[in-house]
């Protein structure tokens, strides 16, 4: 199966890295540079924001574990394997940023579980793994979309939107790899 039908995988990876790296580093700088807005919020607002961030962190940590299962399954061939590892690295970057932000707000970040449950018995080939990953990424896009309007701190909404954009790109690339329309609609929900 051709991984990317529109562009070469190497070119797509370069483009993906350039764009997502720039967006995420911008969000990270805004959050970690000690913005006054983070410090100025009331206790209730901070607690609410920490709760939202912790749910996102838990999902990111699970995504990292899911990609690890895919990478170790021996079902992925290059360049798909490389891309899966790259996506996993970006989920790790999201998790790192979320963890640091939670600490900055005075919260206690969620930890990775000792063991995750995944439907490994249903993953028989590369296509199965890609479909599973695409489902997780689609869900992640929806989860961030549902979180963006909830933050009391607008900078956190911006950071969540930045992560949403990255995960939407993951989803699109995975849909392309599966042979589905990578961008099936004008809006996500």
């Amino acid at each position, binding site marked *: 199966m051709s991984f990317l039908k529109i562009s070469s995988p190497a070119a797509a990876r370069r483009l993906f890295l350039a764009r997502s790296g720039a967006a995420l580093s911008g969000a990270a700088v805004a959050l970690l540079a000690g913005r006054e807005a983070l410090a100025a919020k009331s206790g209730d607002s901070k607690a*609410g924001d920490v*709760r*939202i961030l*912790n*749910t*996102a962190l*838990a*999902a990111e940590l*699970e995504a990292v574990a899911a990609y690890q299962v895919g990478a170790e399954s021996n079902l992925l061939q290059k360049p798909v394997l490389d891309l899966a590892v790259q996506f996993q690295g970006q989920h790790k970057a999201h998790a790192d940023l979320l963890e640091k932000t939670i600490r900055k707000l005075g919260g206690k970040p969620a930890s990775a579980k000792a063991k*995750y*449950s995944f*439907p490994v018995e249903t993953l028989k080939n590369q296509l199965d793994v890609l479909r599973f990953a695409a*489902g*997780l990424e*689609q*869900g*992640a*896009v*929806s*989860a961030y*979309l*549902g*979180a963006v*309007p*909830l933050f009391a701190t607008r900078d956190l909404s911006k950071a969540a939107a930045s992560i949403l954009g990255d995960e939407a790109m993951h989803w699109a690339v995975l849909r392309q790899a599966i042979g589905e329309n990578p961008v099936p609609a004008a809006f996500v*929900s």
Partner: protein
Amino acid sequence: MIEAVALAAALAAGDPQHGKEIYARCLACHALAYDRVGPRHCGLLGRRAGSVPGFAYSGAMKKSGIVWNKKTLDRFLADPMHTVPGTAMTYAGVPDAQERADLIAFLAAAGESVDCRAR
């Protein structure tokens, strides 16, 4: 009048096929048959909130006193964080009543599936 009755009937019944598409939004945190960031959905209807053994619920959910049925799910899914303040389901909700009805119809149908019954 007839249109209003038809709309009410559609909302009451829900379309599980469309609900399956809506359920894709839940897949960052939930699965039918196993616990993830959120608890499993097999057996959801009729279950007391916060009662899946071994799952680490928020205190708010454990204390909510909710029993999940079509009515309570509809209310929660419309606005989770205001329905159960302190819930870990930090999600804005599904504002469209028909989409909620379809999602609940899917969850009900999935609960009767072979996969769920085997759990």
